[in-house]
């Protein structure tokens, strides 16, 4: 049995993250495992990170990269909110994430799902995969664990669910 653990491997998340819209807003979900090679470095990670009162982001890929991008965007959004005089929209948050992901695409390895609610567009989910493409979707899945979910979502997803349906069927 090979007990060699590469403890210096970059902390990757080995993640499943989900964002789903429903008839009143959005529901976000994520697992809590952070792995370094085969070792579970943190079994209680919080991969859903707050950006503003009304916008959150699900993080996947490199833990360091996703944390630093979230920190920068939270900082920019804070300033933006002060300047704007009201809450930032989820679209602005998503575009700030996109700018950082796109302009540093050679160095970053993180896939993010932005979910939020604002008074103009209601609940919205934006996926920002590797490379910095921004794509608005009624639901989004990400992380290495998401491969197993494509079939399920393709078959079971429908628009206009209630919060209970969205939470219970899809996220939980």
């Amino acid at each position, binding site marked *: 049995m090979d007990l060699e653990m590469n403890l210096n491997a970059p902390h990757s998340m080995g993640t499943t993250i989900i964002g789903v819209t429903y008839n009143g807003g959005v529901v976000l979900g994520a697992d809590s495992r952070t792995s370094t090679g085969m070792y579970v470095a943190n079994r209680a990670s919080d991969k859903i990170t707050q950006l503003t009162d009304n916008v959150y982001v699900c993080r996947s890929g490199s833990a360091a990269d996703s944390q630093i991008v979230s920190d920068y965007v939270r900082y920019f959004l804070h300033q933006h909110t002060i300047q704007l005089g009201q809450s930032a929209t989820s679209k602005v948050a998503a575009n700030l994430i996109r700018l950082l992901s796109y302009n540093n695409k050679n160095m970053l390895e993180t896939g993010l799902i932005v979910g939020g609610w604002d008074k103009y567009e209601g609940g919205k989910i934006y996926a920002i995969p590797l490379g910095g*493409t921004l794509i608005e979707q009624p639901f989004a899945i990400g992380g290495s664990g998401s491969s197993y979910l494509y079939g399920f979502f393709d078959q079971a997803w429908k628009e206009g669910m209630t919060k209970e349906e969205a939470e219970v069927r899809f996220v939980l």
Partner: protein
Amino acid sequence: MQFTASKQPENCLLGPESDSQRTLYPYVTGTSVVALKYKDGILMAADMGGSYGSTLRYKSVERMKPIGKHSLLGASGEISDFQEILKYLDELILYDNMWDDGNSLGPKEVHNYLTRVMYNRRNKFNPLWNSLVLGGVKKGEKYLGTVSMIGVNFEDNHVATGFGNHLARPILRQEWHENLSFEDGVKLLEKCMRVLLYRDRSAINKLQIAKITEEGMTISQPYSLKTYWEFSAFENPTQGAVGSW
């Protein structure tokens, strides 16, 4: 992800690699775009797929967008770079409108701008990983051109990107003629898109057709093509089979 150090040979004249930014490979990509000139303007078709390697990850990506009043841009390749190009063009059109002089950039000008952008990025070894199709009509004159990620550009009566060059262009060379009607143009594009659907692994059966004329641009709702699978070998597949389990 494996981080491999890139080694340069001893006699290399290049500076340290870490200095330069360069796009090494695309992540989320769109496949072929096909376009042709017809009687009233340009018709362009593209499917709505965004592939992530061999996974068909996104199925509602709009790969054709209007530019200003007179042009239509279709793109294949890296979607994030296409989104960035749209931002550059937004700015270009904005400044054009700010002149407020009654003139507006036509498709030929936009195509030229895109060519310069793509070629200059290529020279810096940091390309925008796209193949673009730019079509439009201005003052009755139809224009259809293409630019690749290395800056190769030309105009023609019909153009295509990616697989479309190999599968669609030969069909168009045979069957395209001047003054195609709208219906005939759509039929011809659908014929090309069907072949691409059969033979391009990254194609999906959900496409849009966009039309641009002097009056403006319209883009169809997403729809799917009918395909043929009635091969005799598939009828009664177990007929000749020896046993089963």
